Structures are given as structure tokens and as C-alpha cells.
């Protein structure tokens, strides 16, 4: 569906995407995980055939966006990071009008609009103006709009950024259904839980480059331990810096990460590691044992956290 090699994007002298290789196959759900500024949107806009490629090759549905942009755009669905809904039109008009851009007959678009409103649970808002919708509803409407042409490939740029947790879950649920229907999904996110829940395979992007690739589980297995013990220390121990504390426990874990507010101990058995920490006479005010996540993978690969 998407084949990129050595793909680059520059804005003047600044390189936002610095040579990435991507291969997305039909029916899979593929993710770009990376912090703000990693180059995810720049990549997505090239894939959506609205932003010219600066270097390397890119094929979407076997077509070249430089020459077949309209053909590509006719067959894909795009949910951009920034909303482009017409807030002065009604919810339903936004769908109908948009469907017409794809050359679909009016009757078909109307029918499809009602179907999609049902799908994104906005049927009772059909006549409302978009400006009266909540952020989550607008996102769902944008998703509905991107489906109006029954796309073979759906691109979602940060589908839940800026939404409250409840609204995010509603969006995830809808996207999960699409995935089950066999729609090829490509999404970008800086939320590791979103990537874990929705993608079969993902690439981790940082500063315009891909730093790792695989399924969420494989990435965690490859770049992290099974569990993580998080330790927070109180003021009593503040005399000793986190670095000093880290040195005291470094032999208890495969790896120790020092964050501004806590230590992360990467280990196969978190509970046991916590017990060993206590045996050393250290008294963290709070401990948490959890499974490794993609956040840990990112931290491992880049030395930074995804969201800050």
C-alpha cells in the first residue's frame, strides 16, 4: 500500500524527514510513534499526496504521488492533525459536500453520510453546526468524512491528540472496528498506549529518522525488559542525588534510567527488585511495578521521553 525508500522532506535548509524506509501492507494497521517534531506529519502529508517529496522514492497504492496525486487522493482517506471541518456548515453537510469532491453521485453520498454518522455515533447531531460540537465529536466527524469515499487506505495524523480520556476511548473503539473490517490504517501518535492498542506494526521516529521497527510486543521484547520498577524518593533522600541513588541500585537491574522525578529499574521481576532495594536500606516513598511499554523502548533508544 505504501512503499517508501530513502524518503526525505526538507523545508528550506531544514530537514524534517531524513531518509526513511517504510513498507505498509494491505490490511495491516501501521503506526508512526514519535515525539512532537519527529517528522510524522511531514511524512503523512507526503503519503497523502499533498506535499511534494524532497528526496527518495514513494509509492502509494503503486502510484507515484508526483504524477498521480489526484488518483491517489481519490482512493485514500485522510484525517489531518488539524481539523479542516467547515464549522459553519452542519455536521451532515460537511460529509455530503466532501463526498462530492470525490466524484460520487449525490444520492450515494447522502446514503453514505447517514451510514457514517451512525458509525461515529453522531446521528442525533446531523443537523447541528460543527462549531457546536465537542472536540471528540469533531474528531469523529473528521474520521467519518475521511471514510466517505470508502478508502483503501486510511491515514490518521494524531487521531486523539487533545482529547480527554473518555473521548479518546470512543475514537479508539471506532478505529478498532475499522481495523477489524480490514481497512488498512496508518496512524501517527505520540501516545504509546495508542500505538500499542491500535497498531500491528510500527516504526519509532525521532528527529526525522526511524530508530526502530516491529510489532509493539517485539519492540518491547527487543529493547526493554519484561517489567519496570519505578522508584520515587522523598525529601529525606534528597541529600543524595538521583544519580547517586542510581549507582547504589544499578547492579539490581539490567538497566537503570534516571528521570527528573524517579528512577526506572528495568528487570524481569519488578517485585523482587523492589524487595532488594528495600534490603539495601533504601526507602523510596512510592514504588510501582509495571510492564514495559513503548515509552520505555523510546527512552532506551533516544534517551528521552515521548511526551514532556
Amino acid at each position, binding site marked *: 500500500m505504501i512503499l517508501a525508500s530513502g524518503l526525505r522532506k526538507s523545508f528550506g535548509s531544514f530537514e524534517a524527514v531524513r531518509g526513511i524506509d517504510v513498507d505498509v501492507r494491505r490490511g495491516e494497521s501501521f503506526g508512526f510513534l514519535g515525539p512532537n517534531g519527529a517528522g510524522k506529519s511531514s511524512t503523512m502529508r507526503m503519503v497523502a499526496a499533498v506535499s*511534494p517529496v524532497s528526496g527518495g522514492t514513494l509509492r502509494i497504492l503503486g502510484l507515484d504521488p508526483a504524477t498521480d496525486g*489526484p488518483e491517489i*487522493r481519490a482512493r485514500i482517506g485522510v484525517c489531518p492533525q488539524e481539523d479542516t471541518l467547515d464549522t459553519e*456548515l452542519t455536521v451532515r453537510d460537511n460529509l455530503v*459536500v466532501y463526498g*462530492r469532491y470525490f466524484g460520487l453521485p449525490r444520492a450515494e453520498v447522502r446514503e453514505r453520510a447517514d451510514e457514517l454518522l451512525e458509525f461515529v455515533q453522531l446521528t442525533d447531531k446531523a443537523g447541528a453546526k460543527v462549531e457546536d460540537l465537542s472536540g471528540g465529536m469533531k474528531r469523529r466527524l473528521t474520521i467519518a468524512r475521511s471514510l466517505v469515499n470508502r*478508502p483503501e487506505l486510511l491515514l490518521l495524523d494524531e487521531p486523539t491528540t487533545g482529547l480527554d480520556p473518555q473521548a479518546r476511548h470512543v475514537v479508539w473503539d471506532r478505529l478498532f472496528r475499522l481495523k477489524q473490517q480490514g481497512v488498512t490504517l496508518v496512524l501517527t501518535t505520540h501516545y504509546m498506549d495508542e500505538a500499542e492498542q491500535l497498531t500491528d506494526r510500527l516504526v519509532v521516529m525521532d528527529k526525522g529518522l526511524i530508530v526502530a521497527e516491529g510489532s509493539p510486543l517485539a519492540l518491547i521484547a527487543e529493547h526493554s525488559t519484561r517489567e519496570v520498577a519505578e522508584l520515587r524518593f522523598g525529601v529525606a533522600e534528597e541529600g543524595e542525588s538521583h544519580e547517586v541513588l542510581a549507582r547504589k541500585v544499578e547492579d539490581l537491574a539490567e538497566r537503570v534510567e534516571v528521570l527528573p522525578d524517579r528512577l526506572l529499574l528495568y528487570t524481569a521481576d519488578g517485585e523482587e527488585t523492589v524487595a532488594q532495594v528495600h534490603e539495601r536500606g533504601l526507602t523510596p516513598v512510592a514504588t510501582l511495578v509495571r510492564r514495559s511499554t513503548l515509552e520505555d523502548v523510546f527512552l532506551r533508544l533516544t534517551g528521552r521521553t515521548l511526551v514532556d
Partner: protein
Amino acid sequence: MTGTAPTNPFAGAARLTDYWATVYRRTWKGSAVSSFVSPLFYVVAMGVLLGGFIDADPDRLEGATSYLAFIAPGLLASQAMTTVFGETTYPVMSMVKWQRTYYSMTASPLSVGEVILSQLGFVVVRVAMSCGVFLLVMAPFGVFTSWTGALAAFPVQLLLALAFATPVLGLSAGLKDESPFALIYRLGLIPLFLFSGAFFPVANLDGWMQVLAKATPLWHGVDLTRMLTLGRLDWSMAAVHVLYLVALAALGWCWAVRRLTRRMVL
């Protein structure tokens, strides 16, 4: 059934018809008032009442036998211009910046050129309606020497509309924000309206002022319209007017497409 790419730019632009129809349904009340009531006010106030004080000498009024007959074609062409400014300043800023509607249009199979083409189509329809109404309002005042002249003046307004629409749209498409619009209205639209021969023969202007007035697109539109409604057609001058307006529309088109593309395609 996924979508398809349009087979030619006009087919592409035509896909936006429903969009413009929806926009029109939302705004027609306001624009209906301005395209019916304000021309009537102008014709009555300036043409009939002010004109009552003006001693109409055809030799000094480009051949018009009354001030009303002189000013009516000027008001008609001005109406075309004003409608164009209304449709290609703030609405364009909205589509490129506030609502980002252009971005949703070009995420579909449509291209920037097709989007502009459709918007020009909309502007022409709006001008056709407002000038059509204007012609109907003026007809009872007996300002047209011949019906054929009045009918011929109608397509001139559409050409004049395109000659204004392409450069103004291009200008708006590249602006960062709306603040220059106030200036464009005060230093562009209003002086054009007042000094391009709609209200008085430009022959009254001295030297360079007259040259300047005759260089404006509105003067070419006004003069051509007036020739037609007064039934005093000078073919060679008419050809100059048409060529001027066609050239401006064409240059404006290239500029508008280039500016909007530069802004949107990064």
C-alpha cells in the same frame, strides 16, 4: 466505489458545486439585500435626486441625455466590482486560514487550480445575480437606450468580475492575516469606485489623474458598459476594453494559482 480523479479541470471544479450551493444557502439573505436594496438606493439618491440638479448636456456627459442614464452603467459596473471584493477578500482568508476549507478540498482528488476555478465560477454567479437584479431595477427608470445594449452590458459585468476576482483572490490567498483588507477597501475599492468614471466623465480629470483613472480596470468596465447602455459603441475602444479585461483576468489567474499553491503546497 472509491472516488475518482476528475478527467478535466472543469469537471473537477464542478464537483465543488454542492459546496458553493451550501455556502450560498447560508448567506443568500444578506447578499440578496445588498444586491437589491443598495442598487436601488444608489439609483434613487444619485441618479434621480442628485441628477435632478445636474444640467444634462450630452456633449459633456459622454452622450448621456440625463445624469441618471450616465451614472446607471457606472453603478452597474461598480456593483460588479463590489460583489467581487466581498467574495474574494474575507471569504478567501477564511478558507485558507480560519476554516482551512481549501485544505480539505485539496486533500480530495481536486487540485488548487480546480478549487480556484470553482470559486471564480461562484463569484461569477454571484455577480450575475446582483447585476441581473440591478439591470431589472434600473429598467423602469428608462435608462437604457436599447434593450440589446442592456443585454450586452450583462456579460461585460461577468468579464469585469473575472478581471477583478483573479487578482484580488490571488492577493488574499497570500496574506498572513486580514488586517490589510481594511486598507484594500479604503485605498483600493473606494477610490476606484469614486474616480473611475462611474460618477463623472474622466475627461474632467487633469493630466496624470486622467491617465491613472483610465488605467484602472473599473474605468474599462464602466466605459464599455456605458457605450452599450447608451447605444454609442466605438468598436475599436470596445476591443481595447475587452482585451484589457481578458488580459487582467488571465494574468490574475496565473498569479492566484501560483500564490495559493505556494501557500498550501509545502
